[in-house]
């Protein structure tokens, strides 16, 4: 009989400690949780250095400075973030944050209009007396939900009914999505129990 390697024992101990939170908060969980916080942060130090800063900044600068000289700037902006710790010139960090935020928000702007709003409206446009007799349910659903999202108008008797219908559609959606998700979550638990049973307990029992 070969016992599972030490790593499996560690993982099993941490798994059970984490699961113990379900019963109540206890020292084992607290230990696992604190260790997790530390290890995970350390993990991202390694990942960020190895996968972002070294290949995207240090290596390009070291190998082909002529072509990548401009990468000094994000380094500079990165340093500006830390000016927060120098009370007198804390405002310098605004530059880095403002550039970072607005660039991605600009990207977001196009994504919302181009990638979401327009194709989704295109989707509504379908023949309601066509081959799919229930297509109108879809059309009514989207439009009533949109009516629910009107903020700047007082609801009249008609719009109140439509937006109530919109809420019903939202409730169907939330209920259905909840029910739909149960499976995926069980899958995760299966993964953990697979580990405990197949990789840890069975080998101990010699099965």
């Amino acid at each position, binding site marked *: 009989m070969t016992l599972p390697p030490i790593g499996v024992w560690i993982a099993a101990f941490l798994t059970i400690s*984490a699961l113990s*939170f379900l019963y109540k*908060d206890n020292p084992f*969980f*607290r230990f696992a*949780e*604190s260790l*997790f*916080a*530390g290890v*995970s*942060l350390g*993990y*991202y130090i390694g990942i960020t250095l190895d996968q972002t800063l070294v290949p995207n900044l240090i290596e390009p600068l070291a190998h082909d400075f002529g072509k990548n000289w401009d990468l000094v700037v994000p380094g500079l902006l990165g340093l500006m*973030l830390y000016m*927060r710790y120098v009370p007198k010139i804390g405002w310098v*960090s605004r530059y880095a*944050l403002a550039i*970072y*935020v607005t*660039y*991605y*928000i600009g*990207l*977001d*702007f*196009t994504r*919302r*209009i*181009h990638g979401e*709003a*327009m*194709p989704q*409206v*295109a*989707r*509504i*446009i*379908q*023949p*309601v007396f*066509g081959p799919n007799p229930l297509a109108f349910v879809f*059309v009514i659903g*989207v*439009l009533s939900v*949109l*009516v629910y*999202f*009107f*903020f*700047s*108008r*007082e*609801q009249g008797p008609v719009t109140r009914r439509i937006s109530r219908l919109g809420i019903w559609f*939202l409730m169907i*959606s*939330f*209920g259905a*999505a*909840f029910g739909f998700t149960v499976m995926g979550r069980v899958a995760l638990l299966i993964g953990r129990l697979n580990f405990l049973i197949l990789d840890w307990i069975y080998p101990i029992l010699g099965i």
Partner: protein
Amino acid sequence: MKSAGCITLIGLFLAANVFAAPIDAPATPPPDLPLPQNLIAKDKPGDSGGAVVLRWTDPASLPAGAEIEVLRAEPPANEWQPLDKVPAGTGTYTDTSAKDGTAYRYGVRTSLAAADSAGAVSVAASTSAPVVSEPVSSHDNWFKIERTNSFVASILFVIIILGSIQVARSGKEIFIRRIPGLNAIDEAIGRATEVGKKVMYIPGIQSMDEIQTVASVAILGNVARSTARYGTDLDVPNKDPLTFASAREVVRSAYLAEGRPDLFREEMVNYVTYDQFAFTAAVSARMTREKPAAIFLIGYFFAESLILAETGQSTGAIQIAGQADPTQLPFFVATCDYTLIGEELYAASAYLTREPVLLGSIRGQDIAKGILILIAIIGVVLVSIHVLDLSPFLRTQ
């Protein structure tokens, strides 16, 4: 009109082909395979350069297995280099390996690949001199024509929003309907003050590159002003470092604006860890140990939403959640006292501050929404009575 232009072009190219001398064409075997016709090579429109589009008409009858071979000649050597083979019937090929500014000539010809007994493709059975295009070079362009629709939509949207903001600035009163989740914010903070426990605010787990986080941080500003007013303790654990940086500035300036910088502590806004679930474990544990009286889960959450909200629920806190993306809403709706759904998240800062500029843009969103509803209704009617399908005009590329 367009087709007339096309015909002229084709004519031109046909003429050009007649006179174009084959540039160092490979030895010509008997021309037993008919050649493609009407070859046109053009810079690929609306791209960043580096691509040339070829179009041609396949010969009328081709034997089974015939392929069209695409060749390219590059100055100064001008030797034919095979680029690719495409099945008959394709009629078009995009060369994405062109160098901008280089004048290439392209050639197409029919070839019949024959496999030997080993299965490896041997030399094409028959090759004739290719049909040759005019010299063409690729370049980058000024406008992506296929995105005209979303371009126009974006411009219209900007005009509507900025116009509404302008109207609001000029002093026009703008109504905004009741949003229960936002009314509850003060109630929740009030209760925390009564029982002398802290308020916890989690601004999602995404960075500031996500607009929901930016919206959440704006709401945090309002929550922090309330906690400053009431003198209630605030705790803002963060998963993303940039969100953390921003949240701290926001909370600090909120306490300053309320004239209570003495109540602000740096630890109010703290960093936990970059891992989604390590963050979840740490924050859940903090909830059960410190039992905040009110918990805000506003921003972009992923799977951790239910762990956080269900743990918070079990501690008896008032919970207000908000997310624009629909995926986690079911879990917030099931476990929280109030949930800001979808667009309500973005309406929150306008609702809480009643600032004319923000209210104006809410009004603009409603106008845009109205227009979209109208387009949708007209589109549905037109397509249902088989007049016109508007949806292709809205599909984006």
